[in-house]
């Protein structure tokens, strides 16, 4: 995966950190201090679409599914910049009754992006 640099147009991972204190959520979320809601952005020109090694395994299946269903997604001939590696977000927070709850939310943090 490629991390976005200023000015790059290629499919990349854009880091975006949500500070719980900034949004006023630090009183009920104990840990962590924030959430790395990274996202994928940028273009996938044809010569990059389906580049082996980056996203092929994960998205080959999706593409075949789309082909099989002849979904519109492929008619444009483009491909999408999508997450290829994701991690859970582990939260420790107070619920309504002031119980301390620990939860692992799967697939919340994007670690890498690729062209489908």
């Amino acid at each position, binding site marked *: 995966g490629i991390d976005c640099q200023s000015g790059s147009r290629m499919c990349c991972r854009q880091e975006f950190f*949500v500070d719980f204190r900034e949004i006023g959520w630090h009183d009920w979320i*104990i840990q962590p201090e924030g959430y790395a*809601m990274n996202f994928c952005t940028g*273009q996938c020109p044809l010569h990059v679409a389906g580049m082996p090694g980056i996203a092929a395994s994960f998205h080959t299946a999706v593409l075949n599914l789309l082909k099989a269903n002849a979904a519109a997604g492929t008619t444009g001939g483009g491909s999408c910049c999508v997450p290829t590696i994701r991690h859970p977000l582990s939260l420790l927070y107070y619920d*309504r009754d002031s119980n301390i709850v620990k939860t692992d939310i799967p697939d919340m943090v994007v670690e890498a992006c690729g062209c489908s």
Partner: protein
Amino acid sequence: TPRAGGQCPSCGVPTLDLASQRELLLDLAKRSILDKLHLSQRPTRSRPVSRAALRTALQRLRGPPRGTLPRANRAQEYEIISFAETDLSNINQTRLDFHFSDRTAGGMEIQQASLMFFAQLPANTTRPLKVSVLTPGPHDTNLTLATQHLLEVDASGWHQLLLGPEAQAACSQGHLTVELVPEGQVARDSVILGEATHRPFVAAQVRVGGKHRVRRQ
């Protein structure tokens, strides 16, 4: 990717200025977390939580303190179940003897022990039951009363009593004696059953090695 007067290349929506884009992303993050936690809105706490409780939760979140062995290879732990030798000659007083053989070289440390017994009562009756733990005297002389519990047995069936440190010490020394005496009017037949299918037993969690081994480490 902001472009002058352009559109978002992938969804076609007109590009936002950076401040509105940031607002949108923050809102998206909030919604995403609340959805995954199945919450319609952020919880507001009804009452404060002590810092000690918070500290304990944080320690648990971080896993065992550094330097401690993982549970798997700490001193070996196992469970002993000892079925009672029962003396039911007197229906109003049941004496149970439990024997624990210590086959391990390092001695055994009882972590927890509970007594299980089957009580049989006529329907819709309750009986107070006095449970006495007897331990041998200092020079292995006759038994002395160590602790006493009063239970309210309110139904027929299996009942459990968690045994205290005195009983646990007796188990680790190999022999525990318990006396069960129903209180109230004299019963026509025994409250405590002792035949094979309902024999009282003690289940004890044991750690091999006990304290001195730790010291040696």
